[in-house]
């Protein structure tokens, strides 16, 4: 019955939004982690979403669930600050901090959370529809 595919689609979306929320949490937690080495400092992480067209035979192309293909690191250059007193400062006295904008991360978090709630609603409504169909004739 085609309605059961909704659970796959909505489930994949919930999982993808969770990954997105995890990356936001990581970015916010590490926003102030400094390092003396430009290469090893934390860089903001972003998930890459992709649509997966599935379905076999006649139903090919009917299901489009979403998937996180990879989590990429930001290309932005880390911010350099002059702190000679910092124990992790490099030879010139600079420390490098990741270029993370907390406002941008909060907006991303709100968007992910809203998307998550939408997909929960989709699953609940579909479940009720299916249960009502089962009660047909009673």
């Amino acid at each position, binding site marked *: 019955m085609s309605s059961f595919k909704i659970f796959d689609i909505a489930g994949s979306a919930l999982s993808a939004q969770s990954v997105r929320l995890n990356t936001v949490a990581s970015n916010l937690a590490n926003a102030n982690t400094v390092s003396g080495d430009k290469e090893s400092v934390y860089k903001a992480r972003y998930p890459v979403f992709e*649509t997966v067209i599935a379905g076999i035979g*006649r139903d090919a192309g009917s299901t489009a*669930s*979403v998937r996180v293909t990879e989590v990429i690191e930001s290309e932005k250059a880390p911010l350099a600050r002059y702190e000679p007193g910092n124990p992790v400062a490099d030879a010139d006295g600079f420390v490098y901090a990741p270029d993370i904008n907390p406002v941008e991360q909060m907006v991303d978090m709100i968007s992910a959370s809203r998307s998550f709630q939408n997909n929960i609603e989709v699953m609940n409504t579909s479940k009720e529809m299916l249960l009502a*169909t089962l009660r047909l004739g009673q």
Partner: protein
Amino acid sequence: MFDLDAHIGLHADALRLRSKRSEMIARNLANADTPGFEARDIDFRQALSGARREGGAVSLTATQSQHLRGGNASMDNAQLAESASMYRVPVAPSVDGNTVDVQLEQAAFSENAVRYQTTLHFVNSKLRGLMTALTGQ
């Protein structure tokens, strides 16, 4: 011979198409953040009239006993939905090519769910009418 298909009529096709449509809208909502994804929906009126034309509950005239009566649901609901599916016109421009408007999709999903329940209700009452006729109570 009593024809159950003709009695329930287009409600069976409507139910199948509604469930297919709810799947398409769920797909749109799931891909609300995917870059390059284009929202789709089925033109319900067109799809339902297509189902009727293809022999949903319409039977072919049989003048001899060997003639076959028109099969019902000869076109699979997946094919029917795909043939009537169209792309949504994007309301606002977007940077990453995603054309899903979440509010629109949510509203469409709710509307579809309510109409599904309505159609289910009709089918249910038809069936219960039959049961009343059968049992006499």
